[in-house]
């Protein structure tokens, strides 16, 4: 009976290590999920004097995509966002994070503009409110302004098909 003890200990450690293998330590669960989206009012990229406020999105399901021209992974996901915008299923608001307006406008001209508009977070202060740490990040916000999902890193087609789009459809169907 005693010889079983090391075996049991070994099995227990193995189970924990096995669970750990599947987890990505760079993805930190957002405490914002299920909470009201942090509000902001920021200038709109390329529209002199125009301001965007999160208030305007009340009653709509929308995506907030935080991006920058210095972010390589943003370039990776960009074509997918353009494609998604073409489908017209959900509004994508861009948040241009700590970037230069000229570079950002150039980027949208060259690669296509999937955003209904892009808000400019020059200082990165709004990024802090959204708990932003790894560009790009994409949030799903429901009609009453609650954050429902956060995707860290470039959105892959599978993420869109399996997680984001079904969630958007579900939120669209909901009455809230």
């Amino acid at each position, binding site marked *: 009976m005693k010889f079983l003890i090391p075996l049991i200990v070994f099995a227990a450690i193995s189970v924990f290590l096995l669970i750990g293998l599947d987890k990505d330590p760079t993805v*930190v*669960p957002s*405490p914002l999920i299920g909470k009201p989206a942090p509000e902001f009012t920021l200038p709109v990229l390329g529209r002199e004097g125009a301001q965007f406020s999160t208030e305007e999105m009340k009653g709509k399901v929308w995506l907030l995509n935080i991006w920058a021209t210095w972010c390589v992974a943003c370039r990776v996901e960009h074509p997918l966002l353009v494609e998604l915008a073409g489908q017209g299923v959900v509004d994508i608001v861009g948040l241009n994070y*700590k970037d230069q307006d000229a570079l950002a406008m150039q980027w949208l001209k060259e690669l296509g503009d999937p955003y209904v508009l892009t808000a400019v977070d020059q200082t990165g202060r709004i*990024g*802090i409110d959204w*708990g932003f740490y790894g560009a790009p990040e994409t949030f799903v916000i429901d009609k009453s302004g609650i954050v429902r999902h956060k995707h860290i890193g470039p959105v892959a087609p599978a993420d869109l098909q399996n997680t984001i789009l079904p969630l958007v459809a579900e939120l669209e169907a909901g009455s809230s």
Partner: protein
Amino acid sequence: MIKLLTSLVLVLYVASAHAYEERSFDNPAEEALFDTLVKELRCLVCQNQNIADSDADLAVDLRREIYSMIGSGKTKADILDFMVQRYGEFVLYKPRFNARTLVLWFGPGLLLMLGGFILYRSTLSNKEQTSPDAAALARARSLLDEE
């Protein structure tokens, strides 16, 4: 000798310098609070570094944010709340004491006690096994005497 001393002084000076920007504080208490906070908070970009050690852009921004919050009279609890609301409990290098972290706080102590208990039990049973009874001792003695 002078050269050696000078280089020693320089080395020590560098070692004591902050890795981050110099800032001026109203009083030493605020400076101490800033130093504790930047050491206790994790940088989300390079997750094995705290905000004090990290060179990441975000760490620079968060140091600035913490500095301005201290300047506006926020307490340590306020600032930790601010960070946890945005980045989750993961930012805290020193986890909070609550139901979810009970195992974290008490686990090592309990394991130590368990280990101590097992050690105590096993040495006790070893002792019992190894202490020979009187008859065996007498036989051993008689065997030795015969030699």
